[in-house]
């Protein structure tokens, strides 16, 4: 298992798998409202990759598989990748780069404000995701900075909750996942503090 997790081929396979939603989107008819289909698919996958990224640390501990760490950066960057496609879809296909209209949206519409917050917070994390930046910032400061991903995921969930019209099953499911993953962290950091 451990060797398999660490194998180069596994990593390549996971990388390709993470591109599958994009390939699926490109290969399928997009239905009566293509822009909506693309917006929803990219939004869904942004949130899914954020949840997967947040799940890596708990899974490492729970399963006793520390080598899962090899996938955390990749998953996080895929969240950023799908988030960028999602944001670009909005900027281009929804708003046609109408800056005034976009700024008005970000300022006036709580669901856009939340989504925008979630995405903007991912930018510094994507930029500082390299080994060089970890060295430059130092492990402790780097870890502090990267806790912003918690806020980003919560903002994503709030964004989703605010945008649905009445059927809240989707947002509540992701809300539950994110909350469980964050509570696990809170609990484990509390315990390590008290045992010290």
């Amino acid at each position, binding site marked *: 298992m451990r060797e398999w997790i660490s194998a180069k081929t596994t990593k390549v396979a996971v990388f390709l798998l993470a591109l599958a939603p994009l390939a699926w989107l490109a290969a399928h008819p997009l*239905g*009566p*409202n293509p*822009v*909506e289909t693309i917006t929803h698919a990219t939004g869904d996958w942004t949130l899914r990759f954020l949840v997967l990224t947040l799940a890596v640390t708990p899974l490492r501990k729970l399963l006793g598989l520390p080598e899962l760490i090899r996938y955390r950066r990749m998953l996080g960057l895929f969240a950023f990748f799908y988030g960028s496609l999602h944001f670009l879809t909005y900027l281009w296909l929804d708003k*046609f780069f109408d800056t005034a*209209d976009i700024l*008005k*949206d970000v300022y*006036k*519409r*709580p*669901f856009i404000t939340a989504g925008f917050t979630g995405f903007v917070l991912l930018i510094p994390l994507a930029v500082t995701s390299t080994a060089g930046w970890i060295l430059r910032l130092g492990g402790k400061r780097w870890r502090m900075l990267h806790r912003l991903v918690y806020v980003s995921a919560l903002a994503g969930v709030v964004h989703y909750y*605010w*945008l649905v*019209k*009445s*059927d*809240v*099953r989707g947002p509540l499911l992701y809300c539950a996942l994110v909350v469980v993953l964050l509570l696990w962290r809170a609990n484990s950091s509390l315990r390590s503090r008290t045992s010290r």
Partner: protein
Amino acid sequence: MPLKRPISVWSEVTPKRVYLNRRRFMAGAMLAAAAHRLIAGARLNVALKSPFSTSEPQTSLDVITHYNNFYEFGTDKAQPANLARDFKTSPWTVSVEGAVSKPRTFDLDMLMKLAPLEERIYRHRCVEGWSIVVPWIGFPLNALIKQVEPLSSAKFVAFQSSFDHRQMPQAQWAGIAFPYVEGLRIDEAVHPLTLLAVGLYGEALPNQDGAPIRLVVPWKYGFKSIKSIVKIRFVEQQPPTTWNLATPREYGFYSNVNPTVDHPRWSQAKERRLGEFFKRPTLMFNGYGDQVASLYAGMDLRKNY
């Protein structure tokens, strides 16, 4: 029973022109039996073209039947095409009651005899910011209203959709209350643009589009055009409406298409006509201002959204 399920399934897989020809042949053969029968997919006799029709390109039948907000059959717009397939629309009655001198229950055959069927090609604008152009078949709601003779105390008309949780198991997840209810002011209800639709593209309504009979109010957001109507009640007070009950701040009673009053969560200034890449500006009253603006003279449409 002529013209049942298999034929309406063809329409999904056969190019429109081919199946229309085939349909015309079949319909010719069966006209005597099927005339004015409301069975999903049955060809209707359309006597009149309407001067209210737009000449804009019509949205394809495929889009009109696979992109439906019909929350009784699921909140995903692709779901009703599948989940409404076996919805039972016959026998069907519409009870017309309340402040009228002649309350009556109409079955479908009675409804079909109220007035000659017209084709009305209307723009249909959803509150979500998309629009379509639909060749409805139907007759003015006013033809039905005349039959029951409303009392002068009737100031509003309340409509109710069919609701059967056994046939609509997805409804429990919709997050809105059922049965779906809607309402119009009496002058809106008798307005010549207000249609009771029983078909589209020359055929009886597909189930997912509100079979067997639905309202079409083209100058209001689509959710006002209540589907699968079973009850129409004339009342003195403004009746409750489903989306207004769910989120009063977002959906008002009037819900006239209005590009200058944004929905709290999105702008209403533009819309995407399905099938088009660029958005187009949304027109006041969805472009029906000449006919309906006078109904709202002196009203603050920002307050009465």
